């Protein structure tokens, strides 16, 4: 009897243990699912916002007018951005690895100062150029808004 009883307890314990294991596995699977869901996401939320859209932006984006506009912008922004970044990093690179900028340019003012001041000059020149150019981009953008977007992008 006693042995039987003990066996029963053992059985119950075993069941409980199995339950516990199932629980752990199940919850870790749901945790994994959650993690996965957390990482690969955005499906449902996106659908909601799509319904709100009234303008056919894909059509606008693939129109020749918009493509020309983007190409103009890219032709202006990309080369100048590369230029100013290169010009900027040239200063610490040259001062770190060479010393020729330390030779005097005007009196006791050495070339490194001239280079530094030219960075200021570059900023002001590029700002001015940017504003001029951006005004012409504004006109193109306004045209796209008037001719395409306000008509729902279906022209």
């Amino acid at each position, binding site marked *: 009897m006693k042995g039987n009883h003990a066996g029963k307890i053992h059985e119950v314990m075993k069941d409980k243990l199995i339950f516990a294991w199932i629980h752990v596995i199940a919850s870790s699977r749901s945790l994994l699912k959650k993690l996965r869901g957390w990482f690969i996401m*955005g499906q449902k939320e996106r659908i909601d916002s799509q319904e709100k859209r009234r303008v056919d*932006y894909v059509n606008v984006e693939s129109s020749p007018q918009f493509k020309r506009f*983007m190409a103009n912008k890219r032709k202006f922004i990309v080369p100048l951005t590369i230029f*100013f*970044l290169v010009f900027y990093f040239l200063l610490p690179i040259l001062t770190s690895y060479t*010393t020729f900028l330390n030779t005097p340019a005007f009196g006791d003012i050495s070339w*490194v100062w001239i280079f530094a001041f030219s960075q200021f000059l570059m900023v*002001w020149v590029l*700002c001015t150029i940017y*504003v001029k150019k951006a005004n012409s981009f504004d006109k193109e953008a306004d045209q796209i808004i008037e001719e395409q977007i306000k008509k729902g992008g279906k022209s």
Partner: protein
Amino acid sequence: MDLTVVVLFLAIVLLTLVITYFAAKNTKSTGDFYTAGGGLTGWQNGLAIAGDYLSAASFLGIAGAIALNGFDGFFYSIGFLIAYLVVLFLVAEPLRNLGKYTLADMINSRFDAKKVRGVAALSTITIVLFYMIAQLVGAGALIQLLFEIDYWIAVLIVGVMMTIYVLFGGMMATSWVQITKAVLLMAGMVIISFLVLMKFNFNISAMFTEVKTATDHGAAYLNPGIQYDNPLGTISLMLALVLGTAGLPHILMRFFTVKDAKTARSSVITATWTIGIFYILTLFLGFGAAAFVGQSDILAANPGGNMAAPLLAEAIGGNILFAFISAVAFATILAVVAGLVLSGASAFAHDIYGQIIKKGKVTDREQMLAARYASLAVSVLSILLALGAQYLNVAFLVSLAFCIAASANLPVILYTVYWKRFNTTGAVSAMLSGLLSALILVSLSPSVFSPVEGAALFVGNPIFPLENPALVSVPLGFIGGYLGTMFSKENDLERYAEVKVRANTGYREEA
């Protein structure tokens, strides 16, 4: 404390309170609170941007760095300035076209996922808190020197003032305090520079000749290399400066205070001219301090060189100029921390509370209330942290803030606007990898571990060699974003078409 100093100090306090009073009367909606209703004009916003940028670190820090280290101090001026080209060419207009109040708004115009917003808010809050503690600790030490009061009183004064501006006047008060201070600061800089130049008979070459022999460094003072002798370290610092600026939340927030991208653009132009002239003038301040105050006196007043500008003012303009410059420095600190509180509060109240917890279903009244509670919370938290950090060397916090801004915020901004394949997973992984790599690398760097006691937060050998890990953490941010994007197949081309069209044309659908 001198009577002139007290009078000018009180005048600044009074002036900013009057501004706050009028701003409070006009702050009625959430839009007013966060962005002054988008009603600032180009030049007003430009001056406010310049004001945000010309913190006590720029004003006192760079003048001191040039006075002590010659050319190397000037590196900062150049980095901060060129950063505005990055802002102007790549960030300002798309940001204005897509966003409403915060950086997260802009990223969420492409991805609605809450996680994206949450991570963006987290990076904003981290940057704001670190930057704010650094500013407050610096401010406390400085005000202690300028006005001869205890550190904790100094921190409390600054803390209470910034809380009042933000709590009652919101962005309107913060902006006008910023504009006022920018004007005062420029005036102070011009006066000192003029006096310094006068001493050299307006001959700039003579000034260079004078400082060549004025310091212990001799001719080396005019060459780079006194402070930054590690090539990679210098380049890394320059990278953090040029990209970090374009990702600082309180700077980004400034593009929502104007009505459209055109005004945003014109405000960057005003800011760039103001900041450019300012940084040229830091040279006169630095050289002037080296020549007329002397490096040993500057170091004796404050080992970081922060007292160079006020001491120079005293040396060439007497007590009144010293009092004026001290009062301006005080105003500078107040205005910058107020801007920081506001950007931190917007991440808490708008992103986390309004959009994530309440899913955007909040009334304007509730949002205002949340924004005010969040401002109060951010203020109190940073005051407490700053009070506890008095004896810590917190210089690393500034480089940390710039590093996180450059590594976590900038890659995601650029990807969102310019990369077709980019997706939700990529946005989260870009921000997280940038944020974590910046945090981990800085905490292993020489700014946190130094074998010399007191030189950094802890005593020990640094594991990572660069003080400013941007050279590694910025690429990690970009790579993280790339890998995350490739890891998930999700890609919404329709949505990108919308973002691309809106970012470039400035069109907004009224919801």
